[in-house]
């Protein structure tokens, strides 16, 4: 199993087609005779013209298919191909140093690429990639080999490549491929943008994926979790097929369920909210019928940069989310950096076991400047909607007290400066560490709400690294120990009159919804796309049966019996 960055949602199962990287394979620099110089220059100019025509043609097709806003991705290519710096320099090398066209081109392109790659500005570094892509296009015409073996690509293909250019993705669109998986790129790369608009799954940032997968191998691309499963066994395929089925059901349920409340047949109302990590997802929350956000992951603003984000930047993003979802609440998780989440300003601190290291609230209390900046941004944004905050990785009640003390100090500062904020803003604890779960009663007395983070809670309770494919199977959300902890947390919250929500993957599994209802969960916070299925599962349940189911399941210890009980009476 390979872990990358989820770039476009969905699940695809199919045969891999690995695209060759033309650049490395075909460049054979050689010295040419004086008579050949003219031919080489002419070959280069012809290839350049063909590449320009190609780019214009692709731009035109892209515009027809997806509208003007995607066509601008090609502006940069067209201009690079026309650029005198590229053209003149290649011709100069051919004429003066008597290098063949391929050799001259590759030297110039590599030099330009290096110049851009060394630039400080991330945007300009990305342009270095455009130079390489443009150079490759010219090279393809020089060597006469199309990069994409289209005859190998069929409707059941998953395309694996080092990188896909926008032109590649359009060519692939005509072949109706199932998904992309690439070595480079981020959430905002061309590959991601185009895959999302084509509504096919994509995973990017997969190191060495082209050397780890051979063409013809069966692969699963999980664009929801950013995973690629290579050569999956029958059971894995089966479970992903089920998930795919769920996705289809979701599409149909979407229309009808969007405006319906999440209420059981016997009239018990719960809340279904969304987990998101970017302001751009607000639309998706609303279009899927989400009642606010139960988990806003604030980490992405902190990753892959040299400095911590400034208050203004955070404020403007938080405000946008709060305003977009008003009057629904948005629960922001205080930044959980450290752990497996790499933060550049602190990358000197290498920890042996980062998941159990200085992360979440521990990191925030240690680096209070970072913490206070975020709290200020959140408080200021709270004047523009209904914001709540929660603290991650709390392992005992004192940490929550310390965090709240900082919160109160920042509030006092804002009052002094007459900066408006919501004085009634709720703050709660994310229960994801077993020691917090076992002392949830003490935490619930002081916290405004509890939110169960099942991903870490399951991982810590069962001592299983969920990214380790050798043991991932043991991370069972239905482990009796996990179920007992859930009951303990929910009961502790309710004993103090505090609502309890769940924001892990577990809350989004429709099969588990009745159990969670029976345990008394108040808020289900799930991926926007999972909102309709969870609503549907709630609306099909009755609280009486759910309570009965929860009692029965808590009495069991064997995995097979638990599964059996859950799937009883289901197709």
């Amino acid at each position, binding site marked *: 199993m390979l872990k990358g960055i989820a770039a476009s949602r969905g699940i695809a199962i199919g045969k891999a087609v690995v695209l060759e990287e033309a650049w490395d394979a075909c460049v054979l620099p050689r010295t040419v005779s004086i008579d050949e110089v003219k031919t080489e220059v002419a070959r280069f100019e012809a290839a350049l013209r063909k590449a320009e025509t190609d780019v214009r043609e692709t731009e035109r097709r892209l515009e027809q298919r997806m509208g003007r806003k995607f066509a*601008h991705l090609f*502006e*940069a290519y067209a*201009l*690079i191909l*026309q*650029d*005198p*710096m*590229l053209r003149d320099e290649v011709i100069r090398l051919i004429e003066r140093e008597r290098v063949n066209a391929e050799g001259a081109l590759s030297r110039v392109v590599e030099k*330009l690429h290096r*110049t*851009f790659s060394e*630039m*400080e*500005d991330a*945007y*300009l570094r990305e*342009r270095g990639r455009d*130079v390489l892509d443009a150079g490759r296009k010219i090279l393809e015409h020089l060597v006469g080999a199309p990069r994409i073996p289209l005859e190998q690509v069929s409707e059941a293909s998953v395309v694996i490549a080092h990188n896909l250019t926008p032109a590649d993705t359009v060519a692939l669109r005509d072949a109706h491929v199932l998904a992309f998986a690439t070595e480079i790129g981020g959430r905002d790369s061309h590959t991601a943008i185009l895959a999302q608009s084509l509504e096919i799954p994509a995973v990017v940032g997969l190191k060495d994926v082209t050397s780890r997968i051979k063409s013809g191998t069966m692969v699963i691309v999980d664009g929801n979790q950013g995973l690629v499963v290579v050569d999956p066994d029958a059971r894995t395929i089966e479970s992903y097929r089920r998930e795919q089925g769920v996705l289809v059901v979701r599409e149909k349920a979407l229309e009808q369920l969007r405006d319906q409340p999440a209420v059981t047949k016997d009239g018990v109302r719960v809340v279904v909210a969304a987990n998101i990590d970017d302001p751009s997802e607000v639309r998706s929350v609303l279009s899927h019928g989400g009642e606010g956000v139960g988990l806003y992951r604030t980490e992405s603003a902190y990753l892959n940069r040299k400095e911590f984000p400034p208050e203004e930047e955070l404020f403007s993003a938080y405000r946008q989310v709060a305003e977009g979802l008003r009057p629904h609440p948005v629960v922001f998780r205080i930044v959980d950096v450290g752990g497996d989440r790499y933060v550049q300003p602190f990358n000197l601190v290498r920890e042996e076991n980062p998941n159990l290291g200085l992360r979440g609230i521990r990191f925030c209390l240690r680096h209070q400047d970072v913490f206070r900046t975020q709290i200020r941004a959140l408080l200021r944004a709270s004047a523009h909607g209904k914001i709540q905050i929660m603290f991650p990785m709390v392992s005992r009640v004192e940490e929550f007290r310390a965090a709240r003390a900082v919160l109160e100090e920042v509030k006092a500062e804002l009052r002094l400066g007459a900066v408006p904020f919501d004085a009634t803003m709720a703050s709660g604890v994310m229960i994801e560490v077993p020691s917090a779960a076992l002392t949830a009663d003490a935490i619930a007395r002081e916290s405004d709400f509890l939110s169960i983070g099942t991903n870490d809670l399951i991982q810590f309770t069962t001592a299983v690294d969920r990214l380790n494919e050798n043991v991932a199977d043991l991370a069972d959300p239905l482990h009796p120990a996990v179920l007992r902890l859930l009951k303990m947390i929910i009961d502790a919250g309710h004993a103090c009159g505090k609502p309890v929500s769940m924001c892990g993957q577990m809350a989004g599994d429709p099969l588990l919804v009745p159990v969670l209802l029976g345990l008394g969960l108040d808020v289900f916070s799930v991926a926007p796309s999972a909102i309709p299925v969870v609503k549907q599962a709630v609306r099909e349940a009755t609280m009486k049966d759910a309570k009965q189911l929860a009692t029965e399941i808590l009495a069991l210890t064997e995995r097979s019996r638990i599964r059996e009980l859950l799937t009883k009476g289901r197709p």
Partner: protein
Amino acid sequence: MPAKSFTVRTSGGMHARPWARFVGITSRYRSVTITVVKDGMEADGKSLLGLLTLEAEPGSTLVVTADGDGAETLLAELDVLLAKDLDKD
């Protein structure tokens, strides 16, 4: 040789899009040679790649020198373009 100095008013700095508009103008003047200098660094005014390497941030100063037939008209055109915040235009 006509020359003119400009302050970068584009709020995000001169990135590929604003420079693309710049090159869109300069490349029409086939017989004019254009050089752009920023902090001692020099770039061909018709080369997007060269111009990008200048890393012209908001507020920085660009000196544009034009030589050839139509140089004055070209500078006047650039004057109109660079007076704007190209990220908002």
